[in-house]
């Protein structure tokens, strides 16, 4: 019996020994139980997006390691021109770009098709981003012309390998239709090779990638939903790169591991409170101001951890084109909060309800906010519901206060439009995420959208933010950064500051040094 046990243990130990040839294979651990649709125009979740930007390319790209539109550079389009009113873009398509799996050369026709596909509500979750596209036509094999109905701030960024900007190969998409999401065909450095349900997606190097054959042979994108298991899999050497927890203790723990790099990167998700200005008692600006005065951002940052969180600067995340980095947010002043409540007719305080998700990271935040508001006599009644229910209920306008954390395309127009423009009010046919029912900055938001002068445009966005903050439509709390950890033997090939798709870009230059 003892011999059998020893033999089995030896067999297990031998098989568990890591293979020496792993240096050409990158094993990634992602926080998901499975992937959804692998169609870039439908993939809205981080686990799906995180994988697809290694497979697809855009007409332009965010310089690897950056997430700001100021670092856009040529990708499939080798050059472009823009007319003076910024309503007509002409792109020169790079010759010789090959679609994966032998679907031929990528031409301007593919690019035009891709943009139309991304703009169609039938085939894209991001159709709203392309609502201003009047036409996208292939002038010839290598020339693409896009006409806009009106100028769109940062439009070029929408054509990067992010959301609807991912270029699909027409022949493959038409041939596979709905099946495209099961076997995606792009033009990026890695091509789809295999999918095993609830286990992994395997990508192999695209030898015909136009920037050169990738240094890595293969990426195995493993689905590891448990945070603890992902950490253990990293420690055991089974994965080399893991999606982290946006948590200070996690960062500190991982930094203490030998040969480990922890990357804390942009874009930050802005955690905010959105107050419904049309329901009692929040329809009274003094009550909303009292809530704003009761928020202690410094304490929230200390609570969440300064390594992964920084205080909000506005109701738009910092670093976006058009963010007012010194917006006049309400400071902490409990006495003033109490006085405002008394003035509004609530000397004994108020009770306000919020419907909230049970996602642990968000739940701890709202509980901290609840404790802060309590000091000013504001009783925050939290109704906890599971995440999908939360999204459904807040869109039905059932939560007077909504706590929401989000990162968006880094142009102020996007955040302001989605969260504060009257067209985005929930329970309307054009709803997005305006839970506040505010509309006082509509004029500035719309004017900024078509303003050709960048300085004036920024001034309009700043005015919009100041108005919305003053009227307490939204209260910025803090900004939470993305975290990943990887082995120091993995050379990314660039300096990592941010990644709009929220996962680490793996380029043709990414390689293992050992």
């Amino acid at each position, binding site marked *: 019996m003892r011999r059998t046990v020893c033999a089995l243990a030896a067999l*297990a130990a031998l098989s568990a020994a890591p293979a020496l040839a792993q240096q050409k294979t990158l094993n990634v651990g992602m926080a998901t139980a*499975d992937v959804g649709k692998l169609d870039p125009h439908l993939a809205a979740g981080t686990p799906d997006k995180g994988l697809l930007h290694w497979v697809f390319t855009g007409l332009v790209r965010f310089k690897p390691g950056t997430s700001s539109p100021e670092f856009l550079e040529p990708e499939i389009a080798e050059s472009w021109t823009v007319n003076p009113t910024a309503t007509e873009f002409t792109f020169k398509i790079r010759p010789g770009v090959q679609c994966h799996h032998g679907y031929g050369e990528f031409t301007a026709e593919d690019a035009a098709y891709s943009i139309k596909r991304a703009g169609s509500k039938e085939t894209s979750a991001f159709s709203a981003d392309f609502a201003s596209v009047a036409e996208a036509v292939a002038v010839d094999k290598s020339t693409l012309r896009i006409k806009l109905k009106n100028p769109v701030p940062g439009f070029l960024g929408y054509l990067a390998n992010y959301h609807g900007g991912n270029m699909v190969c027409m022949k493959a998409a038409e041939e596979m239709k709905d099946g495209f999401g099961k076997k995606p065909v792009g033009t990026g450095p890695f091509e789809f090779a295999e999918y095993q349900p*609830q286990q992994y997606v395997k990508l192999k190097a695209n030898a015909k990638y136009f920037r050169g054959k990738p240094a890595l042979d293969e990426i195995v994108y493993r689905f590891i939903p448990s945070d603890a298991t992902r950490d253990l899999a990293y420690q055991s050497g089974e994965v080399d790169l893991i999606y982290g927890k946006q948590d200070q203790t996690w960062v500190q723990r991982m930094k203490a591991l030998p040969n480990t790099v922890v990357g804390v990167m942009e874009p930050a998700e802005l955690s905010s409170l959105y107050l419904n200005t049309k329901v009692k008692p929040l329809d009274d600006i003094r009550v909303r101001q009292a809530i704003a005065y009761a928020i202690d951002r410094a304490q929230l940052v200390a609570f969440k951890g300064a390594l992964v969180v920084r205080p909000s600067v506005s109701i738009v995340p910092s670093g976006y084109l058009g963010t007012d980095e010194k917006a006049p947010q309400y400071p902490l002043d409990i006495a003033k909060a109490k006085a405002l409540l008394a003035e509004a007719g609530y000397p004994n305080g108020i009770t306000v309800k919020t419907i909230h998700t049970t996602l642990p990271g968000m739940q701890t935040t709202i509980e901290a906010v609840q404790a802060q508001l309590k000091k000013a006599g504001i009783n925050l009644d939290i109704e906890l*519901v599971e995440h999908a229910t939360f999204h459904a209920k807040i869109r039905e306008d059932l939560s007077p206060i909504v706590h929401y954390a989000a990162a968006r395309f880094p142009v102020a127009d996007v955040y302001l439009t989605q969260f504060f423009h009257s067209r985005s009010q929930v329970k309307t046919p054009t709803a*997005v995420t305006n839970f506040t029912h505010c509309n006082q900055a509509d004029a500035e938001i719309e004017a900024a959208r078509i303003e050709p002068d960048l300085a004036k445009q920024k001034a309009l966005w700043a005015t919009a933010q100041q108005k919305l903050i003053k009227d307490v439509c939204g209260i910025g709390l803090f900004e939470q950064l993305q975290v990943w950890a990887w082995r120091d033997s993995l050379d990314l090939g660039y300096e990592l500051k941010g990644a709009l798709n929220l996962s680490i870009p793996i380029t043709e230059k990414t390689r293992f040094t050992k």
Partner: protein
Amino acid sequence: MISFLIRRAAFALVTLFTVLTLVFLLVRIVPGDPAQVILGDLASQEAIAALRTRLGLDRPVFEQYVTFLGGALRGDWGVSMVTGRPVIEEVLKVLPWTIELTLVSLVIGCVVGIPLGVWAATNRNRVIDYAARMGSLMGLSFPPFVSAILLLLGFAIMLRWFPVISARTGSVGAWFQSITLPAINLGLITAAYITRVTRSAMLEVLSEDYVRTAKAKGVPWRAVVWRHGLRNALIPVITIVGLYLGILIGNSVLTEIVFSRPGLGKLIVGALNQRDYTMLQGMMVIYTLVVVLVNLATDLAYGVADPRVKLT
């Protein structure tokens, strides 16, 4: 026997139909729109409405129900609303993982639990009995995700005998590596149940007259316990094993998540979180079918364990 099987088959059909209807209605009552979940929070209302139409969610509920039942009768469970892949294909790809884990756990549970229960009963109120009772109580009260992490820390990180990601295939060695820790994790909990049931059943049997008679006749104690006693104590043990098999499939979700193994539990949780109606419906049918079949097998096993039990 045949009439018994026919009755059970008819009962199974009624159960399946009831479950189908309940699941169909329940998933639609729970708040949360599949189209919203699929397209994410950036999607416009127009895109969401278009997807709802494509998924058939804008049609009257009764019409959706008739379509669903018609498909179910033809064996067509539709495609997952999230992935677009056929439900049956998704289920069949992970079902073997769950069956394998459940069966191996059950074997571990029986192999450990039955002898331990017998041993505890035959040594009532002695150290062995107290130890077995204490052990089984710990097994029942220990959360499986905690024991799973402890197993991984001990055997995958410290000793490096097993991988953390327990989903290897391709050889007997790989299979052994993948199944061992998850099966031990679930198997020990199963063993805890079986130990307690076996002990109490054995205590009852060992006080029966025929046991005393066998002892008086000079039958060796080992034969009295294992041949006469255990056989008669098996009915409640079979009942608990049958019941627990159904529970195991449902309970395996935490083990699947911590050991990063594919399985039905993960599929159900994913479908529930994403409001994947078609997937949930298909999964519930499979789950119900498994429970019905296990119950049938349990009833049949009674007859095998005790010939006095007649299935009519």
